[in-house]
């Protein structure tokens, strides 16, 4: 397991047909007696085979809801999902629950944030891996077991034969996350969604997992949607980055472009507020003022306006559109801002 540091033939990949096209995805939660809450609105993006797309943003900006909506895993009641999520020509959002079940785990798989709570505490790891194969590949439990062992081995779990029989609590945090990844990869899905897969882990473990994910994606041409709030993780892993704020994409760019020249004040603010290991010490951080609690409703304004140092009058009255802007060599750059940061930095 040796990670190489550069990616090759990216151009070839990105030019292929998109594997997943998310179009205008909106999710609204309705609770009795309260205003409907638009957790996600008008989110669109494409994922190419072999590509890693990042969704970043602060807590509550709708990252998880987006991914759950694509997977059809939102709670059964209390929400409306509109838009499309076309996966290889079929709109996942229009599938019946039964059809969706057939796809989940086989074509699209997902890894969650907390590896302990995401594993069933009373079922052995092996069983939790084999059950996916039994379900989607029609294997018997016996047949699936050697494959499960291989899988565990592949994700770097030592002594897989013994681990198969063990329970989640007997594994360390990193091993649990590996086991979850093994489950997700069991049927060689073409799209993998990872929802903050390393947030609950220590840095040293995080590095292990990220390396693993990187290698897996590269080796198998799997597309990855990487959800995180850690810009550092995105910087090392993603090809294309979407920044979310208040349920909408506010900026999209190739990772190099984004980090080198953030155009949205929010993205810029985020980058400026993170202390960096590689920068000079002692300078004051430039935080984004206020908190998410100050957001405006998107319909008549830019939600970020109250916290924005660049805000102009229009920001409080009209909703900015997500528009293509200059730059973006390989991936088109999109931006939702009335008064973006000028392009130098």
């Amino acid at each position, binding site marked *: 397991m040796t990670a190489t540091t550069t990616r090759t033939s990216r151009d070839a990949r990105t030019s292929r047909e998109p594997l997943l096209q998310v179009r205008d995805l909106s999710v609204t939660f309705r609770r009795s007696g309260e205003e409907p809450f638009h957790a996600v609105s008008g989110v669109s993006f494409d994922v190419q085979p072999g590509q890693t797309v990042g969704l970043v943003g602060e807590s509550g900006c709708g990252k998880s809801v987006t991914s759950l909506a694509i997977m059809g895993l939102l709670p059964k009641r209390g929400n409306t999902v509109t838009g499309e999520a076309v996966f290889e020509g079929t709109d996942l959002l229009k599938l019946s629950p039964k059809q969706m*079940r057939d796809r989940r785990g086989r074509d699209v798989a997902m890894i969650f944030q907390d590896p302990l709570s995401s*594993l*069933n505490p009373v079922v052995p790891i092996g069983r939790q891996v084999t059950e996916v194969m039994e379900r989607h590949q029609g294997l018997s439990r016996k047949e699936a077991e050697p494959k499960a062992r291989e899988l565990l081995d592949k994700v770097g779990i030592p002594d897989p034969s013994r681990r198969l029989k063990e329970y989640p609590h007997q594994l360390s945090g990193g091993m649990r996350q590996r086991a979850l990844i093994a489950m997700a990869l069991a049927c060689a899905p073409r799209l993998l969604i990872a929802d903050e897969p390393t947030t609950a882990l220590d840095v040293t473990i995080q590095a292990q997992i990220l390396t693993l994910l990187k290698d897996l994606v590269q080796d198998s041409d799997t597309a990855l949607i990487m959800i995180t709030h850690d810009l550092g993780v995105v910087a090392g892993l993603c090809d294309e980055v979407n920044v979310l704020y208040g349920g909408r994409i506010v900026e999209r760019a190739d990772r190099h472009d984004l980090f080198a020249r953030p155009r949205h004040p929010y993205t810029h603010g985020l980058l400026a507020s993170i202390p960096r290991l590689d920068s000079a010490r002692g300078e004051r951080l430039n935080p984004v003022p206020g908190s998410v609690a100050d957001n405006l409703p998107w319909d008549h304004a830019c939600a970020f306006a109250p916290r924005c140092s660049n805000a102009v009058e229009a920001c409080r009255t009209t909703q900015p559109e997500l528009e293509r802007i200059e730059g973006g060599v390989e991936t088109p750059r999109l931006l939702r801002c009335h008064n973006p940061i000028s392009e130098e930095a």
Partner: protein
Amino acid sequence: MVGVMLLLSLLLFVWLRSLPGGPASAICGDRCNPAKLAQIKKTLGLDDPVIVQYLNFLKRAVTGDFGVSTGVQPGRSSMEIFVERLPATIELGVLAMIIAVAAGIPLGYLAARRRGGILDGLTLTSSLLGVAIPVFFTAFVLKYFFAVDWHLFPISGRQGDIEATRVTNFFVLDGLLTREWDAAWDALRHLILPAVTLATIPFSFVFRITRAAVLDVLDEDYVRTAEAKGLSSKVITRRHVLRNAMLPVVTIIGLQMGALLGGAILTETVFGFPGLGDALARAFTGRDYSMLQLLILMAAATYVVVNLLVDITYAYIDPRVRTR
């Protein structure tokens, strides 16, 4: 644990002896007079200092001798009565628990799945009623309709006029063992009404805990993981939801097992069912100290044992406990 039992026995012992009346008066009878009473107390050693009596009691108790009953079945060894009646109460309790569990778990699951629906509302309310109706009243009503009015079940007792060989004193089991099918069936018929009555309380608990546990588990990340794996709903229900939801249910079943004896006092009294609950009720009215000491200590011990069993079961179904 042993400490708790000792403390309990001492408290009980001293308290019982500090009260007026008691076994000496019971033996002395209606024609009693103070002189005769004193004589009887002397004969029985009831005039010794309480602590001496207690030590004697402990000495005998260690050998399994809890004295002689004076109220429940005067003259018989309390232990003998206990051993004889224990199967009756176990039979009753187990059947009640089976009913409670068989009804409580599926209904609890369904109610959780259809949270807020009509089924949920109905079952929830009826389970609350299970606690709100005094057990003995339930017993009266059930008996009145099913036994007295409609003659579907016998009125009282464990068995009717039927030839039956006693092997284990578990009547149903005995009937099956000796192939006296009609005796087994008859014993079972006698069990049904009391068991249903007794089941109302554990049912309500099992139902509510199942419902709450299933609701909790449905919200767990691993269920979402299972969904994300595209598993069939049957597998998700069985392997991922129920197996985890059963953990608190097992606890509550254990707890309720202990509490069943309480309910049995009332139920057995109404149904004239000669078990421990009936013995307890009569030991109280008959001031049968020996029987009371034995039964109350046994109730506490049972509680402890049942809890141990629950722990063991728990360890069996929850690997987190097992491999610690």
